[in-house]
């Protein structure tokens, strides 16, 4: 985008085809300015919205959407979402700053800097679509106890329903997952969704899915006793009913609940009209899963409402966890975990700002617990785990941008200084 708009107009007096006009528009400064202005406004709206909606919902509405409606001075206005704006900006930047720009080896700065920005935008796209993330909780060794090992991570914000079949020895035979995308969206009052799978000899009907039944203190405020549920006309299963509690701004503190009914398969696509089992499922944590179990014929099954789970290609064992406070305070100075990667025996010390990277996965020291633990209590370490193919790309992008901008601005400064010296000399000569 080295030419000014006026230069472009001067050089194109003759009538342009529609395609050429479109090309001009999509590679021009006007679109860049419009898109950047939208990006500025959306970032502001999305930031302020976090006060009311919390980070997760505000991000979904403003930063991950194609379009959104914003009330500006009481008037609903349709705006493009950051996702759409970023995609258009990527196009504009590619056409204007890489393809159309007048390229000169004497002025490489902006070309390099814009390439760096494109690279970071692309990294953002890859990370948004292909990142898998979750948390792994590992208890510290406790005397003669076997050390805590795990190869599973749990997403703190997404929930899923896991349907598990057990063999005669009580071991897991296979798991079918009803994922967050199938449970997402609006659940209007009274609405139900049915889930079937060819490997599962029954149909699961999910009804009254509630995104949260816990209050800010973690108490199950939405769990109703039989009497309370009757008064409110809520379905009762085994003496309990549930009602929605306003969602917490921090999405990880929300606890969903739902009713499920199981219907046996009687034909290829036919199911019994009478349910064989019904349950009220309440979201369970990674360390204390309490799945609902039932039998269908001779087969044992369980259905569990749990945080979305991924299995890592390797298992980790916690050898030691250290937590150190600043003296005389409860402010953490340092906390770190010594872990062993089971398959290779690799020992790694994970601490704040020093993650472990292996097989495309990155394990970070995120937190520890339980909250309010007293000296001597058994602690657990919380490792954030993410799989992001674009993990280090932004770092490389930063180097490219910094180099490009430094070259450009230093060249500009020198040419400005040259001009000033020249004009000062001219002034002195004229005096």
């Amino acid at each position, binding site marked *: 985008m080295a030419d000014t708009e006026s230069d472009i107009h001067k050089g194109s007096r003759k009538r342009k085809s529609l395609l050429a006009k479109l090309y001009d528009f999509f590679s021009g400064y006007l679109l*860049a300015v419009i898109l950047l202005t939208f990006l500025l406004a959306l970032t502001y709206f999305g930031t302020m919205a976090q006060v009311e909606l919390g980070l997760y919902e505000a991000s979904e509405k403003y930063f991950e959407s194609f379009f959104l409606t914003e009330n500006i001075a009481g008037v609903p206005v349709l705006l493009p979402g950051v996702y759409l704006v970023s995609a258009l900006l990527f196009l504009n930047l590619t056409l204007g700053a890489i393809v159309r720009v007048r390229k000169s080896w004497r002025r490489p700065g902006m070309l390099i800097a814009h390439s760096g920005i494109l690279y970071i935008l692309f990294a953002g796209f890859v990370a948004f679509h292909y990142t898998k993330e979750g948390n792994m909780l590992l208890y510290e060794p406790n005397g003669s106890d076997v050390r805590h090992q795990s190869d599973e991570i749990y997403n703190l914000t997404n929930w899923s329903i896991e349907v598990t079949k057990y063999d005669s020895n009580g071991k897991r035979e296979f798991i079918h997952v009803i994922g967050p995308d199938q449970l997402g969206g609006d659940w209007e009052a009274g609405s139900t969704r049915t889930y079937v799978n060819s490997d599962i000899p029954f149909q699961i009907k999910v009804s009254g899915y509630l995104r949260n039944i816990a209050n800010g203190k973690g108490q199950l405020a939405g769990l109703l006793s039989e009497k309370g549920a009757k008064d409110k006309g809520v379905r009762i299963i085994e003496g309990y009913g549930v009602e929605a509690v306003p969602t917490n701004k921090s999405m990880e503190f929300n606890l969903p609940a739902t009713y499920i009914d199981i219907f046996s398969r009687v034909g290829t696509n036919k199911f019994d009209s009478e349910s064989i089992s019904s349950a009220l499922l309440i979201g369970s944590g990674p360390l204390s899963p309490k799945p609902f179990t039932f039998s269908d014929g001779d087969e044992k099954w369980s259905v569990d409402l749990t945080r979305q789970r991924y299995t890592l290609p390797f298992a980790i064992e916690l050898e030691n966890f250290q937590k150190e406070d600043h003296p*005389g305070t409860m402010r953490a100075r340092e906390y770190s975990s010594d872990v062993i990667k089971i398959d290779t025996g690799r020992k790694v010390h994970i601490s704040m700002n020093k*993650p472990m990277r292996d097989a495309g996965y990155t394990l970070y020291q995120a937190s520890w617990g339980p909250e309010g633990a007293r000296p001597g209590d058994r602690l657990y370490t919380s490792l954030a785990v993410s799989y992001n193919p674009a993990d280090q790309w932004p770092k490389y992008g930063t180097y490219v941008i910094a180099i490009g901008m430094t070259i450009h601005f230093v060249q500009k400064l020198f040419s*400005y200084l040259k001009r000033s010296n020249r004009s000062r000399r001219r002034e002195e000569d004229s005096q």
Partner: protein
Amino acid sequence: MNRLIKSIRVILCFVFAASLNFSAAAIDSYKKWDPEIVKIFEAMPVQEEGRLKPMQTVARYKLMRINNSKRLRFEVGGEKIKVSAAEWLMDCLFRPEVAKKMPIFKVNNPDVIEAIGVEPHSSPRERYSFEEISSAPDAMKRLSERTGELGKMMEDSDKEEESKAARRDPVNAGLLSLKSAVNEFEWATNAFNFARDGIAVDLGEASEEFKKAEGGKSRVSYFLSEFDKIIEIARKPEGQEFVAKISAAFNLLERDMATAGVKDRVSMISLAMFPPISDDDEEWIKPGYLIEQLSFRKNELSVEDQKKFAQWALPKIVALEGLTRNVGSPSFVNDLKALSDGIVAKAKERGEYKNIELELLNNRLGLFHWALPFYIMAFILLAVTWLGPGSKISRGLTYGVLGMTVFATVALIAGIYLRSILLGRPPISTLYETIPFITASAVILCLVIEFFDRKGIALACSVMIGIIGLFLAMRFEIKEARDTLKVLEAVLRSNFWLATHVICINIGYSAAILGGVIAHLFIFSCFFNVGSKDFRKSVTRMVYGVTCFGLLFALVGTVLGGVWANDSWGRFWGWDPKENGALMICIGAIILLHAKMGGYIKELGINVMAVLILMITVFSWWHVNQLETGLHSYGFTSGIMFWLFIVYAIESAVMSLGLSCCFFRFPERKGQLGGVRTVFSVSFFLLAFIFTIVFVNLALLT
């Protein structure tokens, strides 16, 4: 409107604070402490908030939390008395009866003091003494009840909104602040009660067993040295009478022990003044812990360790008893020196004392406070040069301005450097530390521009930024009233990232602010039709250059922040409010550069945009911290929203002034404005004007 008038009054009060801050006091006499005693006391090391620091620092922030000042001023019989923070803390610890008469509690709102049944003073500047408040019938009870109700509401998660609204009420806010100050004061005056008052019962009278002992039978040290015997007597079948006699003393001792600070209860108001017995232990010991370990928790140690601990701890308690009971005697200074020497020697042996002397030097120099008057003097000289521009005198004075600005900036940089040495890390990690750093960076940038440009424009800006920045730092320190030299959370303990991301982003902030400040000159020059075309051209060139410079640092700093977040939290970008604020600065600057290159804005547009970027920077620097959400929630400061809205209102007004120039100041350009451009210019002008009114309203509603 009242709020606005009050705020203007606050500014005026501050400017004349030094001369106007004396208050009518009820204290009838005051004997100053011997300077040698004060010197010894100030240099005693204390562990607080995870850091070893001199008693002087502890005293300063304690006093600031109560009195909004590092010094106490009052009148005794027409004589003006100034008391340093350390002297005041000594009064609290060793002469509480004097401290309780000192006018110390600042209550600006008379409704607050009336709400607890105390007669308000005629002037809100006059402080209230503890005696004055506590002697009013039921005043303390009312204060506890009202704040207790608010406290309960704050703890109830279902009443979050109600609690926020209640705390916004000026009377409630004032009561909470007064209660916190009273608590802090009461702690300070009661901290050495155990040493001064003893156990309120003479053991010699309580039991025949202690009759033969010589003196000191009501002292805590004696009680503790005889603790095993006391328990033995109490356990005897005939010990019930003895227990009845001393049970009240036990209860009082337990209370005084808690006030003096025990180990497991994290308290910011107790003095951890003794190095620990074990060299491996990092946590310093509070006097209450000595009592606890010699009595109630004695059995946690083996018999051998009990003996060792008693040998180590009892002399410390005896020393404090000696001090509190011999205030005013000639031996006081020697006793204090002996106690202090022991503590200092041990601290040196542990390698912990090295920074205490440096911190005392830093406190004594007060480099940030010294820099401010020099910037003010430079501004006055600068104003004089404007009376006769181009004259020889004016040129001479300009060198004076430059000299003073350089001197003040060197002091500022030295202050930042000293803080870095003290904490052993790069200069910025808290919101407070950003203020002097951003001020220094902007001033240095101005001086560099002045070196090339030599038109006095950047020099004028440097002086103004210096004054505003240091004034802001001073007000912020008083408002927070917490030690500004802080230890860091685990995630921030990375000198590499503090030295790269944080420094870069703050240089970006300083350049964005500087660009906006310089742009004011262009807008005022246009609106008031002063200054030549060349002047405006120079200003615009500076704004453009500074914006480019700022963009480089803001963009690189923002992305580096993402890289840091990726290493700490496992995600590059999380749409956290602070990240978004930094991104908005970058976007604002990129819009300016692209709109200029596209030919959509010219000189005026560049300068108006620079003011908008200044507003965005203020939003990112201060406002997002007030949203109480996000990972960067380290910098919440209550009560600054009013000032933020005032800044936004002023800057919106400046933008509308600038945009109005399109129509009123350059009528000849009217013809050049195309239809679409005219519509945009009018729309932006109206928007800026409407926002000015909106922000003024928001400020008045806050």
